């Protein structure tokens, strides 16, 4: 127990260090980008005096270290800065876009869990009798190998050509009601979930197969337990951790902004926010949105690790799940 507490505390500390590193890297990247604030706001013809005045107004004449700390300080006071382009507070825009990305994540995740995991369990259990054949491997491999920008483009083309009754792009105004919003997110979520379904099916299959060779499964079969009972009580409990790990990774990956899918389908989410911010050199937007995405990833992996160690105390001792 003590060991587990110590392990958890260590894990939290390392997450904080990672977060610190991430914030420094983002800050550095934004400062290193060609094109300064002065160039963007005043244009190339501004006089040196004007530039100096602007730099002073934004605090850009201070040492970088001070600028970094004042940025961090502002974040803690809830101020994410103001967009140069739209002149609205970044926090407000981020607040409007996060729900969209979150909803997209939820829809994609529901599809992944509903399709990928049963598929993985089924192929994993069946593979005992006859190992997953070449066709299964090609199909699951294909799901992982088709990039979003190919699948997305094809889906947009097919659905806009054939008018199949599902709305393509043309994302309705945020707050147009739950029904239309989910409908507009359905196709992009399907495009996103193809990779996730294939990945989760593969992981689940491997996890199930790893458990099936354990002696306690043979014992359960010998006791005359039904296959369904064995799968539910003996297999899934032990196969749970790798599956949970994968789902957490997928969640973090989706919440980080499905940049390409949001671009293809014109969805006003986090991913397209980052890309347009970068295109316009809207530094406050870039800093805040990238930091948000990375923070989500770090927090999700931290929570996952803590849950895993609670479920399987061996994690805290050996650093990895048992079996």
């Amino acid at each position, binding site marked *: 127990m003590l060991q587990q507490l110590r392990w958890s505390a260590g894990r939290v500390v390392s997450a904080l260090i*990672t977060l610190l590193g991430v914030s420094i890297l983002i800050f550095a990247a934004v400062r290193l980008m060609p094109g300064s604030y002065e160039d963007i706001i005043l244009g190339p013809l501004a006089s040196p005096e004007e530039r100096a005045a602007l730099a002073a107004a934004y605090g850009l004449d201070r040492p970088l270290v001070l600028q970094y700390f004042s940025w961090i300080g502002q974040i803690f006071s809830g101020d994410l800065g103001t967009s140069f382009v739209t002149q609205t507070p970044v926090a407000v825009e981020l607040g409007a876009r996060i729900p969209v990305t979150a909803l997209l994540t939820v829809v994609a995740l529901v599809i992944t869990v509903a399709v990928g995991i049963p598929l993985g369990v089924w192929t994993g259990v069946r593979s005992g009798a006859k190992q997953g054949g070449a066709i299964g491997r090609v199909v699951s491999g294909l799901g992982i*190998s088709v990039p979003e920008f*190919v699948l997305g483009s094809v889906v947009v083309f097919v659905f806009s050509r054939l008018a199949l009754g599902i709305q393509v792009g043309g994302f309705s105004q945020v707050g147009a009601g739950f029904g239309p919003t989910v409908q507009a997110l359905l196709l992009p979520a399907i495009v996103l979930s193809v990779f996730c379904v294939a990945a989760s099916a593969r992981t689940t299959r491997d996890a199930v197969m790893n458990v099936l060779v354990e002696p306690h499964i043979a014992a359960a079969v010998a006791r005359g337990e039904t296959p369904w009972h064995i799968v539910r009580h003996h297999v899934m409990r032990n196969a749970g951790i*790798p599956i949970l790990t994968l789902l957490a990774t997928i969640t973090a990956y989706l919440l980080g902004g499905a940049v390409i899918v949001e671009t293809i389908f014109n969805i006003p989410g986090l991913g397209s926010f980052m890309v347009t911010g970068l295109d316009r050199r809207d530094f406050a937007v870039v800093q805040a949105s990238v930091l948000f995405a990375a923070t989500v990833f770090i927090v999700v992996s931290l929570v996952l690790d803590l849950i895993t160690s609670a479920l399987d105390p061996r994690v805290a001792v050996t650093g990895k799940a048992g079996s």
Partner: protein
Amino acid sequence: MTTYSLPLVRRKRGATTRRARDGLFIASVATLAVIVGIAVVAAVVPFAGDPAKIVGPRLSAPSGAALLGTDALGRSVLARLLEGIGTTLVLSAIAVLCTAVISVILGMVAGYLGGWTREGVMRFVDVLYSFPSIVLAILIAAVVGPGQIAALASIVLVTVPLMTRMVSAASMAVAKRDFVTTARISGVSGPVILFRHVLPNISGTIAVQGTYALSVGILVEGGLSFLGYGVQLPQSSLGLLIQEGSSYMVQAPWLLFSPAVVLVLAILAINLVGDTLRDRLDPRETRSLV
């Protein structure tokens, strides 16, 4: 008495599977060989013509004159595709080579020395790993400016974290083994132990992770060029061709078709090769999921 459909599983894999896997492995290697071979031949003998030359009317369908049709400027899609395959493969291969060198050195040192060195390397790697890969790639492209260098640097920084972790874990396991202890006691220096004793024993992990990194690299180049931050016109790459294809999809679907098929085939074949290598060389469950 119930009837069972849940069979007892033996650890040993059946001979049928072996054969099916081998067949798939050979097919994947053959596919890759064909793709690479065509690109190499095209680079030496431009049999499909000059990719920059205008050969026919704009957006004409595949025909005898232009086997895969022409693009929006009337250039031969086949010639540009061959150039694009070359660019994508060379970029990804160079990037993965850089990744391998960086990750092997960082990972081996971290895994062998352990302690604070390992902590430091892992935190560094975690920082990179925390960014969604395409976001990291775009950020890098914004700093160094769009182009081939941006694509290369992005692939390296996206693939380094996972490979370093895997190499470090494998090195840590090797460093605990008796022959390493023996070497250390008999006074063999650190670098010699790493290169003579640890490296040969983690070569399986390196091969597997390198293979997966290559498929991620092709994906990152594709995504970056698709968004306009990677390889720039008038050059061509698979991602760039797919981006062009998707903007003319309604008038000329063949523009998207050929680069997309080549890209998917290449990634699929590399992943399948990686799976087979992993089964053979790297028995621990280490799977890339990027």
